């Protein structure tokens, strides 16, 4: 029996609200950005409607492509470090008694409340020559004289990982708390040491969760634009920094929009390839 018209409309009603919200706050702004990326720039002024590929053509230079490559590298490295540190940490947190878990979660949530600016300047002070950690090492007789570690690539990675780490733990936590404690025990009784149990049972079971978290941290890291300026040298500036620079300081919105669209396409393509590879591998296994 076919449902009457009114009830069929009612069935789609719950989807109306998210559709409107997505359309209003995601599709429309993206469409505007896409349109602006093809617009004609008026030097000294703003931009006027048009359709030209000049902005994209300018992007395809060794400088901007190099920056794109570096941005992807930084985001990828951040995601990998976060998961390598975050997965075991999350695992140990979920094995703790309830009360200690709560303390850890409160601590990680409080890190989330810090803004990128505060995190950036805190690391730059911690790694500075005048007031940084190297002074502590000198005091401990481990170093001869204090040195400056910031700005630099290592300093940038410290900040990026610090920013991504709480998200890593929070995303993995629910999945890892559901682990049947008898699974690692079964591996133990079958002769696997705790370390082998971790690599042969726990990590493989959470393959999907790990891939999802890596993608999330990767995409999240691509959008970070303050830390490279605070903790990195100009050669460490990522595409997000250049987009901000073009949009705000050079008043070249069309070029900024073109770069943003390009960055989004490239990251979407990378995420897609990762998911496809994962699926193919599972089919082969």
């Amino acid at each position, binding site marked *: 029996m076919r449902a009457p018209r009114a009830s069929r409309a009612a069935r789609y009603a719950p989807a109306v609200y998210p559709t409107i919200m997505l359309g209003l706050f995601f599709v429309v702004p993206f469409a505007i950005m896409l349109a602006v990326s093809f617009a004609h720039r008026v030097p000294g002024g703003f931009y006027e409607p048009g359709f030209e590929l000049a902005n994209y053509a300018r992007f395809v230079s060794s400088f901007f492509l190099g920056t794109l490559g570096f941005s992807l590298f930084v985001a990828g490295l951040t995601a990998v470090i976060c998961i390598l540190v975050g997965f075991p940490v999350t695992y140990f947190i979920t094995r703790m008694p309830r009360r200690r878990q709560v303390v850890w979660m409160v601590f990680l949530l409080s890190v989330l409340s810090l803004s990128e600016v505060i995190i950036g300047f805190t690391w730059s002070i911690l790694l500075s020559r005048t007031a940084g950690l190297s002074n502590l090492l000198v005091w401990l007789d481990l170093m001869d004289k204090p040195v400056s570690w910031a700005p630099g690539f290592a300093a940038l990675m410290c900040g990026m990982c610090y920013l991504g780490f709480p998200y890593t733990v929070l995303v993995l936590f629910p999945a890892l708390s559901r682990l049947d404690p008898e699974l690692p025990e079964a591996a133990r009784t079958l002769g696997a040491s705790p370390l082998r149990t971790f690599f*042969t049972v726990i990590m493989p079971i959470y393959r999907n969760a790990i891939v999802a978290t890596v993608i999330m941290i990767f995409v999240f890291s691509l959008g970070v634009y303050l830390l490279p300026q605070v903790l990195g040298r100009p050669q460490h500036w990522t595409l997000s920094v250049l987009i901000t620079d073009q949009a705000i300081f050079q008043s070249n919105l069309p070029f900024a929009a073109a770069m943003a669209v390009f960055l989004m396409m490239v990251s979407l393509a990378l995420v897609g390839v990762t998911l496809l590879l994962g699926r193919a591998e599972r089919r082969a296994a």
Partner: protein
Amino acid sequence: MSGLRLEGVEKRFGAIVAVGDAHLHFPEGQFFCLLGPSGCGKTTLLRIVAGLIEPDAGRVLLDDGDITDVPAHRRNFGMVFQSLALFPHLTVGENIAYGLRIRKVERAARRKRCEELLELVRLPGVADRHVSQLSGGQRQRVAMARALALEPRLFLLDEPLSALDAKLREDMQVELRQLQQRIGVTTILVTHDQREAMTMSDRVVVMNEGRVAQVGPPLEIYRSPANTFVADFIGTSNLLPAVVAAAGRVTVAGEALAVAALPDGLGPGAEATISVRPESVHVLPDSAAGENRLPGRVTFVRDVGVSVETYLDCAGHEVISIASPKDRPDVRQGDRVLVELPAADIVVLSA
């Protein structure tokens, strides 16, 4: 002395004594059941044997070698867990061969052993399937095959059949017992189901509140329980308060009853409890004369065809009698009757 021995093993969780001062000997090749109500410490004891829990005191010995400090992965004890704990990311064959792979056994040999084990648990040809494609009973068998893959010194099972439905559980009990007899591995199974324990074990270890209440062959435990807990927990039992009268006699509800034996240390005047199995209780007409009878009243008759249960009230104490259909007593609810408790079937326990 060969086999497994526990000497004064103890484990506390906070203020709770999960296992207290356990002394047990598990001789080679036998099937043991750790039986008790939930929370009695039977699972804790099994996990101490497996090396998954460290005891607070006492020693675990295998063939006279102290293994208390040997970690679980160096003990080579196969274990079947309550949740079965099959690895969800591996196929049936990979699950079974997991331990062999850890030991770096070659691929071809792994494959061969895996086929043998699936044959052993009567589940051939499923090695390439995924665990999620198996039924509950099949997963059970895979978990057993995996635990037996390394030819373990001990085969440990933690309530492995509790998730199965009643019919399948009974079949698996028989099958598990036959499997154990075929390969002759010393087996310890944890269960709260006394029927399961009676079906499978050579010896039953009854536990209560962290203590070992009685150890013995199933029938011995059934026929001569060591205390009121065991009498009550194993099967149904009629427990009646009694006072020791003279040699070979006790007084129950004002009537003197002859008993076969009195436990040591119970002199005349001592308070005791008598235990009589329902199938030993006979319901007789009010007029019948003879020894060892208590007057009573029928409160309820449950006739389920295969057996007849008569509920009786003897001076305020409930007594249940079970008879086969051909011995069905000719009584109705409310009838006054005599309840015969044969002297040979009365077990006197210290109160």
